[in-house]
């Protein structure tokens, strides 16, 4: 899509930033409303729906039995993929996976994988012969900005409520997937010259670089990604990291609460 808006939008974002305001009336570190629903789709072994402002994302977990890699005979595998399908926005077109969708899938994948919340050894069924492959698919239905955080939240919530379909594959009894911890992502975009948390569609369109931070339960960093054109200073990063800690803690509580139901 040709981006017609940015020049005017950029000026407006700069004007607002000078007055410490945002285009939708939020404060610099305010989030839009977030709602999370789990176990909402038949056929997915784990599923979650996240409505985050105007962004709507589903994540679904499926399992398959596969042969382990020869050098890791007792380890299962995890794969997280994302699709930015044309359903989600006027700007998305059909075709092979775009660099944007590959980045989204990989950033969410790294946060989950590197947090170690899935013990690959626990996915082993018969060493050297059979292991579980866990696949998380992120399906973006409406892109209203900040799809990264919504995708990360949907993915971990779907994973944490997933049931391993062992009976269907004739390898024991169905059981909850073991997930130790909830890595959560927090994303920031530079809009009007300063960083804001949870960028809206307009802030993304008229903004500069974005930074995605995934934090684990202990507050440790598990994945970082800087995207798009722009530079930032260490002190700017320290500031948004402190915001990310608070935001991630709250979202982690939301996941825990949904799981309990």
């Amino acid at each position, binding site marked *: 899509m040709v981006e017609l808006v940015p020049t005017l939008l950029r000026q407006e974002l700069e004007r607002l930033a000078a007055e410490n305001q945002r285009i939708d009336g939020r404060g610099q570190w305010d989030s839009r409303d977030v709602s999370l629903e789990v176990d909402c*789709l*038949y*056929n*997915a*072994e784990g*599923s979650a729906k996240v409505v985050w402002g*105007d*962004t*709507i994302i*589903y994540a*679904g*977990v*499926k399992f*398959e039995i596969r042969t382990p890699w020869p050098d890791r005979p007792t380890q299962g595998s995890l794969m997280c*993929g994302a*699709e930015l*399908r*044309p*359903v*989600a*926005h*006027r700007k998305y077109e*059909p075709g*092979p*996976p775009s660099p944007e969708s590959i980045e989204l899938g990989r950033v969410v994948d790294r946060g989950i994988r590197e947090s170690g919340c899935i013990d690959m050894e626990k996915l082993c069924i018969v060493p050297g012969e059979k292991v579980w492959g866990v*696949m998380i*698919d992120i*399906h973006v*239905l*409406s*892109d*209203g900005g900040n799809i990264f955080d919504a995708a990360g939240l949907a993915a971990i919530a779907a994973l944490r409520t997933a049931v391993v379909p062992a009976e*269907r594959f004739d390898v024991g009894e169905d059981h909850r997937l073991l997930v130790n911890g909830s890595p959560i992502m927090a994303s920031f975009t530079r809009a009007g010259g300063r960083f804001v948390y949870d960028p809206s*569609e307009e802030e993304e369109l008229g903004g500069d670089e974005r930074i995605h931070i995934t934090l684990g339960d202990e507050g440790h960093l598990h994945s970082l990604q800087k995207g798009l054109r722009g530079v930032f200073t260490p002190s700017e990063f320290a500031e948004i990291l402190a915001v990310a800690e608070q935001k991630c803690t709250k979202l982690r509580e939301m996941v825990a609460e949904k799981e309990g139901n």
Partner: protein
Amino acid sequence: MGGYGDVKLLRDDGKRLDGRTVDEMRPVSIEAGVLPAADGSAMVTHGLNVAVAAVYGPMEAHPRKIQRQDRAVIDVRYNMAPFSTGDRIRPGFNRRSREISKVTAEALESVVLVERYPRSKIRVEIEILAAEAGTRCVGITAAAVALADAGIPMRDMIVGVASGKIEDTVVLDLDKAEDNYGQADLPVGILPNTGEIAFLQMDGDLSIEEFNLAMEYNFKAASEIHELMVDALKRRYERGDN
């Protein structure tokens, strides 16, 4: 059709395994205007099926060779989410989804007043999030509500419904087991006000009498679903947000 004759699909009391009578459809619920990014959208839950449709446009038709000088083209993509079925589906178009997309587009072009928008394109995206038999019909219903939600003029709504045959008995709205082990499936797209048919497929084995009965069931179901579609659109406009 799977066509295994030895699977029991009707109970001794004449009802189906899930307790429905032969001419009873699964519960349906419809919501219009569910996707903020789209010009029009709808979500249809039909039994355990979940379909979401988004409409974008009318917009400039790209690439130019698809343009029609006298009307709009409707570009439909029917897609099953990777987690929508028992075994994960590899993302991307396959032969089945290509065919369904094509005939669905042709059905929608039969009801949308495409001549109002020469040289343009209307994009209809159908995403199946959960599949339990009959997804193409649920997708058509969702697409129709999404088109209406987008304010695109149509000569009528179109409702996707299916009947079929299990254990030599014609039944309305096959579920998963009935679809897998049944003897016939007859999905149609019905214009509820004019009584015309804009979408038709069939596979399996039906006598003329069975076909007529299946069609009768389909028309009955179409008028029931049509009421829900109208109701969803009314609720949408009472709600009032763009």
